[in-house]
């Protein structure tokens, strides 16, 4: 009758075979996602949660579009601008979309130069991204004011048809525009930190007191690409449908 408490090896336990091995590997100690910093993991999980928010908004918009009995205004006509005597549908939205997608490109370049520790280029590209984002919000403000003051669209009704058109439009683009504006503010903050060299010297960041490093540029980038991606869905489901 022996009491064998298991062999005291200093080797890792062998991985079990099959699916249990997959589980054991993925659930190994310390970190589930190896080499993923905390901030990045947090941003990813936040974005999943935010995806549910925007999905709920868009599904709700589609539901009320079906439930309302009034005709839905034609977005092509509502969002048309008269340029050089011609009425061009969705031209402003096309420009806005182009600008926002371009800003994703400059953001990606900023992340790249950030990891190469090229402070000046990263700074310029971050600022350019912020400028493109700000111009997007500016055009959105123009679009809103045109709808409100010239077309008479209000959240509770409009002359073209279903009241939900204005409600959903202001709510969804407003919520998205808020996301872009917050992004612009943080882009500027990160840009200044990059230029001052806070990320190289690992100077403690504002609010959190944590040391800075270039991961923050990539985390900022994740957020920014997400906001762009959401816009693509809003563009497809609200303006094109």
């Amino acid at each position, binding site marked *: 009758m022996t*009491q064998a408490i*298991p062999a005291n*090896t200093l080797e890792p336990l062998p991985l079990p075979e099959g699916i249990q091995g997959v589980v054991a590997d993925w659930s190994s*100690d310390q970190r589930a996602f190896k080499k*993923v910093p905390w901030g990045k993991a947090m941003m990813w999980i936040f974005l999943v949660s935010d995806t549910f928010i925007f999905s709920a908004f868009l599904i*709700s918009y589609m539901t*009320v579009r079906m439930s309302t009995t009034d005709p839905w205004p034609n977005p092509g006509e509502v969002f048309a601008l008269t340029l050089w005597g011609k009425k061009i549908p969705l031209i402003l939205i096309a420009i806005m979309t182009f600008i926002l997608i371009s800003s994703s490109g400059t953001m990606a370049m900023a992340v790249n130069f950030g990891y190469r520790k090229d402070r000046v280029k990263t700074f310029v590209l971050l600022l350019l991204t912020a400028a493109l984002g700000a111009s997007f919000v500016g055009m959105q403000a123009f679009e809103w004011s045109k709808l409100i003051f010239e077309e008479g669209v209000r959240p*509770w009704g409009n002359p073209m048809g279903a009241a939900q058109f204005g*409600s959903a439009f202001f709510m969804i683009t407003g919520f998205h525009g808020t996301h872009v504006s917050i992004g612009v503010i943080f882009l500027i903050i990160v840009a200044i930190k990059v230029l001052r060299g806070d990320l190289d010297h690992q100077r403690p960041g504002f609010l*959190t007191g944590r040391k800075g490093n270039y991961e923050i540029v990539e985390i900022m980038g994740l957020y920014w690409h997400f906001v762009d991606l959401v816009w693509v869905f809003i563009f497809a489901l609200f303006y094109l449908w």
Partner: protein
Amino acid sequence: MDYVAHDASAYAPPAEVEEMELYHPKTFVGKYIWSQDAKIIAVQYAVTAIGIGLVALVLSWLMRLQLAFPNSFSFIDPSNYLQFVTQHGMIMVIYLLTALFLGGFGNYLIPLMVGARDMVFPYVNMVSYWVYLSAVLLLIASFFVPGGPTGAGWTLYPPQAILQGTPGATWGIILMLVSLALFIVGFTMGGLNYVVTVLQARTRGMTLMRMPLTIWGIFTATILALLAFPALLVSAIMMLLDATLGTSFFMPAIVSMGQQGGHAGGSPVLFQHLFWFFGHPEVYIVALPAFGIVSDLISVHARKNIFGYRMMVWAIVAIGGLSFVVWAHHMYVSGMNPYFGFFFATTTLIIAVPTAIKVYNWILTLWHGNIRLTVPMMFAIGFIFTFINGGLTGLFLGNVTVDVPLSDTMFVVAHFHMVMAIAPILVVFGAIYHWYPKITGRMLNDSLGKIHFWVTFVGSYAIYYPMHYLGFAGVPRRYYAIEGTNFIPESAQSLNVAITVAALIVGAFQVVFLYNLLWSYFRGKPSGGNPWNATTLEWQTPDTPPKHGNFGATLPVVYRWAYDYSVPGAEQDFIPQNVPPGEVTRSSART
């Protein structure tokens, strides 16, 4: 007999991340008020949640008084009654249970149990609490505005929630919705912390499959919350716009009080879908941490490893996943497509499978265990009873044909109070009795605890068991007073009186618990670091209560799972997680 431990190994991989930076505050305010220490934040969360929960307890008394003695109280008119019902439900479900389990127990236990210095983003964690507090304050403020708090029922169904005639339709509903939105913002900040801490900040050797089930429960519940609360946030924003700007997301064309309303074309059923897409996972946001905690309580106090650890983990994950595809079983009578009822009844009944696995495993853990009837253990066993009870009535309500006649009767009230109110709150009590020694360094008084348990447990049955019969008899819920009906027998009234008396007694006896908390804080028996001889890391800290940073100079290294109790051949009947196999003292006695 030869014993091969579950997965004990002397090997611990080298550290992958450097030590966490901690900002040690020096002033009293920095330590205890604007604190970034998860343990302090946990206590702040818990005290706030229990405080607002006591308000909800008093509200339930007022409801019960009206039901037992209709028209006897001048301060309860029909509007007040509806406001009490609404605020009681909302506070208990969201501001008490969600905040207490995730904000309270989550904050306290996650870093300690996974071997982390603190939450990964302590600053965000601090802000989370203060946003939660402001949400609670807004909720309290709604009691003092013109018209009082909203009386729309805790589900806040439109159109009635924002129509004139519903109590609180002017101010109350707006404060309620803003408060909910703030709660969600605050929770998201905390929730991101809990998830990332569990995923990315565990100590060496702490694999996911060595985590205590408490952490699995809280972790899964937090993920559910991060995915479910968005639907509530969106519906709150849309209803806020309906109420303030006159949009018509949820509002159809309505003639109210003889006047055509200003709304047209909205979809009230859309709100119900959004609400229950949040609302059903919410049940499991409360239940899963309770499942996890009760598993640990049973294992520790029965001195036996949890039966079927892996299955317990997978059951938690499966329940979490399934909880997202059952929401419309709350809407069988809402007028949705009947085929939906078929789908949602099927998914609902499938949830019974992982849930039953958990119940069997708890019972099999008790089987042949060295059961110690400590106060936490009594609450844990009490939980199993009430949970089975509430689960069985859930099978009734999950079936469309059985649900339709029982809808909106007292049977529903009895069911969800059994399964979602009493069962988790028993776990809350058990958990407080279990971890109070770690939080304060003193034991809670045993005799007071036993009185508290028996009154609460027996009293809860006295309240809710008869309510099932009222439901069968057809007594509707949320009614201010029932007069002039033929189908409800006279005896229903005497049953109502009995329920109210029981409710008053149970509620009043919670004072014993509060007194125990206060008295033991100053006079309780010093507990030492590990009064229950438990294996998990929070009991192995060098200081009790643990200091900022939790584990002193070096972080513990984990060599085994959390359930090495009564290991054959070992001298003590528990082997802490941070004891390497080579250092386990063998017993001289033959086994």
